[in-house]
C-alpha cells in the first residue's frame, strides 16, 4: 500500500490581463509521485480551467518547467517528497523572464527563435553531445547520433538574474546552444552572433543557469568556454591570423 500525504498546492493563476494571484488546492498524494502529477490532479479533480504545459512525462520534451517553491524544476522528474513534507505546501509558479500566457504557461517563442538563429540541432554525433570534460567512452563513436542534452525547458533563463532585467539578452540556453554548435561545426559566424552586447558578454557569472539545469547542459560553463573562443577569435583577427571558416551543415 502506498504512502499518502496531504499537501496544499498554491498555484499562481493569471488569465488575460488579470493581476497574478494564487489559489490553494489541498490534495492527497503519494509522496513518490511527481510534482507534475499533483498539478494534473488539481486540473483533473479541482479546476479544469488550470492551464500548464506538459507532454512526455520523462524529461525529454522540456515542456513542464515551472518554479516549485521558488526554484526552477522540471516537474515531471521532481518527486513531491524531494520538495515538501506531509502537511506541507508546494508553491507552483510559472517560469520567470518569459511573458505569461495563462496560469503556468509562458511564451517561449523568443527563446525558440534565438535557438533557430543559433542553428541549434537537437541531434548530434555522440562525441559532440556531452560536455567535453566528461570522460565517457560510450560517447566516442561518431557514427552514432543521439539527442543533445538541452531540452529547451527554459529553466536556465528563468533563473538568470540578467534575463530578469532585459528581454534582449540571448540567455543561457541560447548561448549554450551556440557553444555546442560551434564545437561541432567551427562556424565563425556563431562566434560573431555571440560576441555582442546581448550575447556572451552580458552574463555576470551568477551560474544559476547551471544550478537549475535539469539536463546536464551546464550553460554557465558553456558561456565561459564560448567567451574564451570569442576572445581567441578576436585576438587572431587582430593579428590578421586567418581562421578557416566552415559552413553549417
Amino acid at each position, binding site marked *: 500500500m502506498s504512502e499518502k500525504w496531504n499537501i496544499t498546492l498554491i498555484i499562481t493563476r493569471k488569465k488575460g490581463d488579470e493581476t497574478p494571484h494564487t489559489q490553494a488546492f489541498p490534495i492527497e498524494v503519494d509522496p513518490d509521485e511527481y510534482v507534475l502529477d499533483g498539478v494534473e490532479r488539481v486540473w483533473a479533480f479541482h479546476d479544469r480551467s488550470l492551464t500548464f504545459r506538459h507532454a512526455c512525462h520523462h524529461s525529454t520534451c522540456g515542456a513542464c518547467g515551472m518554479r516549485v517553491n*521558488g526554484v526552477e524544476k522540471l516537474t515531471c522528474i521532481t518527486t513531491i517528497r524531494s520538495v515538501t513534507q506531509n502537511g506541507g505546501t508546494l508553491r507552483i509558479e510559472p517560469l520567470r523572464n518569459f511573458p505569461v500566457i495563462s496560469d503556468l504557461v509562458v511564451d517561449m517563442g523568443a527563446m525558440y527563435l534565438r535557438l533557430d538563429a543559433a542553428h541549434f540541432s537537437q541531434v548530434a554525433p555522440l562525441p559532440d553531445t556531452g560536455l567535453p570534460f566528461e570522460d565517457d567512452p560510450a560517447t566516442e563513436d561518431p557514427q552514432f547520433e543521439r539527442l543533445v542534452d538541452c531540452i529547451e525547458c527554459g529553466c536556465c533563463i528563468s533563473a538568470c538574474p540578467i*534575463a*530578469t532585467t532585459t*528581454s534582449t539578452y540571448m540567455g543561457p540556453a541560447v548561448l549554450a546552444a551556440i557553444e555546442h554548435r560551434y564545437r561541432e561545426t567551427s562556424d565563425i559566424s556563431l562566434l560573431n552572433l555571440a560576441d555582442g552586447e546581448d550575447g556572451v558578454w552580458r552574463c555576470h*557569472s*551568477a551560474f544559476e543557469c547551471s544550478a537549475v539545469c535539469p539536463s546536464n547542459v551546464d550553460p*554557465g560553463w558553456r558561456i*565561459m568556454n564560448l*567567451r574564451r573562443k570569442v576572445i581567441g577569435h578576436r585576438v587572431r583577427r587582430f593579428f590578421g591570423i586567418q581562421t578557416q571558416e566552415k559552413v553549417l551543415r
Partner: protein
Amino acid sequence: MKNASSPQNFLRWFDPRYRQIGTWGFILNRVTALGLTLYLFMHLIALGQLAKGAAAYDGFIALVENPLFKLGEMLVIAAGLIHGLNGIRIALNSFGIGTRYQRVMFLGLMALAVVGIAIFGAKMFLFS
C-alpha cells in the same frame, strides 16, 4: 507583458531567496561596487577640503577620527576585499579558467576576504 526593465525586476537582483551560492557572489559584487563608488565620491569631497586650507582639512581629519567613520573605513576595506577577490574569480572564469570549480573558488576567496577583514579590523580597532 514582456519582462521589460522595471524597478521590481531590478530589486530581484538583490533577492537571494531560493537561489544558489552564485547569486550571493552576484549580489555581493553589486552591493560592494555601489558602496565603493559612493566611497570614491566621498573621498573626493574629503580631498576637496585640502583646497580650503590646512585648518579646514585638520578639522575634517578630526571628524573622521570618530568611531563611526572608522567603521565606515572598515566597510570600505571589506568591500574592496570582497569585490576584488570575487572579481579575480569572475575574470578567471571569463577566460574559461576554473569554471567548473567556481563555487569552490568563490568560497575560498570569500574565506580569504574574511581573514583579510579580520586582520584589518584587529589592526584598526585593537592595535591602533
